[in-house]
Each structure stands twice: as C-alpha cells, then as structure tokens.
C-alpha cells in the first residue's frame, strides 16, 4: 500500500505561496476578461480559468499530485460524472430551446378547462401550501 504521507513528498511553504499568488493573479485575470468582449471566448476563458484554479488547488493544496493513483481517480471521477449530468441534460435542452416560447401561461382554477375569454393571468392555486377546493369527481 502506498504511504501517501512520506515526509519528502510534500510541498513547501514557498510552493504554497506560489500557488496562492497564481490563484490571485488568475482571479484578477478573470475579472479583467469579464469586462472585455471576446464573444464566445468569454465563457470559455472564464470556465477555463476556473478550471485551472481548481486544478492548482486540487493538485497542490489538496496534495493530489503527491497522492495515490486511487486518490487521483476519485478526484477526476467526481468532475467527470458532473459533466455527464450537465452534457446529457443540455443535449435535451439545447436541442429544443428554439421551440420554447414565452407564453402567458394561465393556470386554470379548479380543474375545469379554461374559458376562451379569460384575460387575467391565472394565479397558481396552492400558494405556499395553502389548501384549495378541488373538483370532487375523478378523471
């Protein structure tokens, strides 16, 4: 079993200080970039810098660089799995968002169909958990 804490496998305060400086500098860069229009690159740079900062924290402050392979696998897996959640969800929302329309959705009161000439937008029935009367008959 790998002993993850051999005395010679750890960063020094100097290295920590360097990482601190780098993190602060990257923070400054990301703020600066935000105030300039690079088009679609703005998002890429913002996430990229956040990613670099994360990698620095994970590798050095969290000692993953000096840790076991298993620790590295755990660290990567978490972010990888989140990327599955986000990317597959986006595969749905991005390919149908052009179909979404701003509609004045009116919730019917009671469960009866909405009359054609209703002008007021309907309010949701159960406001903050209040009770309401409902139609007695079932479908």
């Amino acid at each position: 079993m790998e002993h993850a804490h051999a005395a010679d496998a750890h960063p020094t305060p100097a290295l920590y200080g360097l990482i601190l400086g780098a993190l602060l500098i990257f923070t400054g860069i990301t703020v600066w970039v935000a105030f300039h229009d690079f088009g679609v690159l703005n998002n890429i740079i913002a996430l990229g810098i956040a990613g670099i900062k994360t990698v620095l924290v994970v590798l050095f402050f969290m000692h993953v660089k000096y840790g076991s392979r298993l620790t590295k696998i755990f660290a990567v897996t978490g972010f990888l799995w989140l990327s599955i959640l986000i990317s597959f969800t986006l595969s749905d929302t991005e390919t149908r968002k052009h179909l979404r329309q701003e509609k004045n959705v009116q919730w019917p009161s009671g469960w009866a169909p909405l009359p054609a000439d209703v002008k007021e937008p309907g309010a949701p029935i159960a406001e903050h958990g209040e009770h309401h009367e409902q139609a007695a008959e079932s479908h």
Partner: protein
Amino acid sequence: MSAVAVPKHEEAPALEIPSQNYLNDGYSIRSWLLTLDHKRIAILYMVAVAIFFLMGAAFALMIRLELLTPAGDFMEAETYNKMFTMHGVVMIFFVLIPSIPAILGNFLIPLMIGARDVAFPRLNLMSWYVFMLGGMLLLTTAIFGGVDTGWTFYVPFSSMFSNSNVILATMAAFTAGFSSILTGLNFIVTVHTMRAPGMTWFRLPLFIWALYATSLIQVLATPVIAITLVLLMLERGLGLGIFNPALGGDPVLFQHLFWFYSHPAVYIMILPGMGVLSEMIACVARRRVFGYSFVAFSSLGIAIIGFFVWGHHLFVSTQSVYAGLAFSLITFLVAIPSAIKTFNWTATLYKGSISYESPLYFVVGFLGLFVIGGVTGLFLSTAGLDVHLHDTYFVVAHFHYIMVGGEIMAFLGGLHFWWPKMTGRLYPEFWGKLSASLVFVGFNLTFFPQFLVGYLGMPRRYHTYPPEFQLFNVMSTAGASILGVGYILPFIYFLWSLKYGKVAGPNPWRAKGLEWENTTSPPPTGNFEHTPIVTEEAYEYSHLPEANVVRASTH
C-alpha cells in the same frame, strides 16, 4: 491445502451455537443501539426494513383492493393517489435501496474480505440512525395524511397544486438518501483498503464486486436527487418558479435531475441481488461461477452505463427527439452486461452438481422473473413503442418483475442462504421451499396480467379503469394474496427458527468463502480469531474433499 477440518457428515459431532458470538456479546439495549459491530448494525437494519416492507405491502394491498372493480368505489381518487405514492416511496427508499446493501452487505462484506469490521464503524451506525430519522419523517408524512404526487414527485403538481405533505415526504426521501450515501462511501473505502492479505481484487467473491459497483452508484447518483428535492422544497415553500412554466421554469428540468439519480437507483436495487445470485449459484452448483471476470466487470459496466440512460423515462415528456435517440440507443446497450451475467449464471448451473435446496428455488425464481423483466425493458427503451406503453401497466409490470421478481427474490434468497451464518440456526427447509414457490406463483399471477392489460391501454395511477380490464385486474389481486402469503411465511418460520431451529454449525451449505470456512455461526464480534490469509481463487469447490456433498440435515 485444507484449513479447519470440516468433519464428514456421519462423523459430525453435535453442533453448538458458539458460546461467544456477536449476538450474545452484550444483551442491553445500549449494547445494540450504540453498537459499532457491522453485524449488529445489519440486524438493526433488518428489523427496520422488515417493518417498512410490511408498511409498503399494506399500501399495495389497498391498491389491489381498489382495483378489483373498475369503479372507484373503495376510496376517493386523491386517497388512491396517496396509496400508490406511499407504496412507492416506502418500497423504493426504505426497502429496496437499503435492503441488500445495508443488511447483507453490512453483515457480509467484512467477513467476505477478511476484515474485522468496515472502515468506518461509527459512520455505519450513524447511517442507521439517519435511516431511522428518515423513517420517522415518513411515518409523520403518513400520519399527517400522506402524499399523493407519485413517488416521482413531478412538478408542477408537487410544487404548486398538490394538497398533500410534499415537503415532509421529500425530507423523508432526502434523509434516507443521505443514509444510502454514507453506506456506499463506507463500502467503497472498506473494499479498497481492508482486504485481508492475499485477497486480491480478482479473488473477491462476486457479491463484493456487485456491492462495490452499487456503492459507486450510491455515492455518485444520490446527491443529485438530494439537491433536486431541496430545490423542490424551496420551490413549493417559497413559490420560486424555477419549475413553473408561467414563471419561465422548465418542469422537464426537474425530470432530468430526478431521473439522473432514479435510473441508476434501479441498479442500486438490482446489482446487490445479482451479487447474491452469484454466491448462491456457485454454492448450489458446487462450482466456480463461469466467466468470473466477465461477471465482475459486468457489475461495473451496469453501474457506469446505467448513468447514461435516464432520458428513457422522459421520452414523452417533450424531451428533444435527439436526446431521446441517444438515450434509447444507450439503454439497449445497458441490457448487455445484464445478459452477460445471466448467461454466465446459466453456464454455471449447466452440468453443475446441483442440490435441490431452498436457495436453488430462489435462484431459479430470480432467473425466470429477472429475464422477463429485463426483456420487457427493451420494449420500453424502444422510443416509438414507449409512446404507446408509457404510463401504462406495462411499465408497472416491467419494473415489478425486476424489483420484486428480481431483487426481492434475491434478497429473500440471500436471507435464507445466510440465515444460518447470521443466527446459527437453520430454518425449516420445507417451508423455505414452499415460500419460494408461493412467491413465484403468486408473483406471476399478480404481475403477468399487468403486461397484458397495460399493452391494451390501461393507464397506471388511476383508481378507475374501463370495465373490459377487470378480469386481468382480478387475477392480479388474486395473485397478490398468494404473494402475500409467500412473504408472510418467512416472518413466521425465521422467528420460529431463532429458538427452535436446528443448530447450523459453521458451514451447513458446505459453501466456499471466508464467511463460511473461517468463522463460526454466528461469528464472534471480531469476525475471525486470526486474520485469514487468502491463497486461492473464489469458489474453488473442486478443492473440497467430498465430491458428493452431504448436507446438514434439515426439517
């Protein structure tokens, strides 16, 4: 090389319950409620899950009684909605998810890998308390009138229109989920760091591979439903609008977040059952599982691929057809590792030296029912067909075949198989076989008609139905009563066996495995007198001295 000599049957001395075992290591309530022993924690879970099972079964009884007749004459629509919701919430979060991992997993994992306990015994106890807290919240929900949204809590009904105890119910599910995360975390670390010397990954029992894969899912998937339920609580409590179309929200987003967990959750439920199957099959066939590494990797394969298919629950939700296409295709792929397991199990049985004991009955029951459930999943993963089948009883039948016909059968089988190890007593064989048979017959009578009636168009989650479906519904309710008898019997004879059952001895099934060969029944608190050193592969039944095995005799 032989270890502790196992006496031939005809020379066996009278078997005794060991004078010092984990069950008599302290009799006070405090020694149970503050235990750090994984075996006692498993028993605590067993009692809790048994109670929740009865509760969930009671709700099922209500459902089947209402559905005896087409008219909604037994209860109001809203009451019926509460029945199926509570049935689902109880059975999924408080029975199926914890059952095998928290009971058999907790009991067996340290024993099977040669460890004294799990990696974090206090966390283990805490997970039980968290589970009980969830149970209290669930009971409170029931007392305050239940919840009627379906166990899936779909918005905007759950967030805006339901008059029932949505927030309480989601808190109960959230809490049970947290318990599940802690259990999974504990098992992952235990398997990585606490295997006995010589217990390499590929010498592990397949039960461990299955539980390890399950634990991965528990840790990776459960937090997503946790945050989703939090968002639902905030939405309902504060009227936020993130899932309300009138305020720009997208209800389908809820479904994505919900099913990202809930689909892998079904693999949390079935994988441990598959692990139990591997152990029982090796034992009843007296040989190593065919294709060990295929079965081991297929557990991981199911766990991983299972994360990419959740959109098959959203085919008719307005999910984009492009996403639907991807999810449908990948769902077909996830059937493959399950099929690999099934073929390997069959190959293990083929030309094995099979003994017709009660574990075999559960094995056969599982294989038949799981296969039916599995192939009907392929019907549903075909997006075009799903348009017709979604929200019909076809879906209900499909998942009950897997969850009940598969997992509960495996769970019961595992309880039977390891009962002698856990209690030191044998249950009566005849009653074990009878129970398995009744469950098999009753189950098919309950749920096969539901495939037919679902395909014919009967929708789920309605307390009424068109009169032409009544025959199948009556058959289903009749089957449910037989099924109920099959489930009640073990409660009786297991309890009976605690006092009157024959003493089992260390290895009544003559099985391979550290839990059978290296410790007593019941085991001592520290599991082993000395840490075992593992020198052979799993399931080396050929190393046993007797070719024709004579079992400990039973009633």
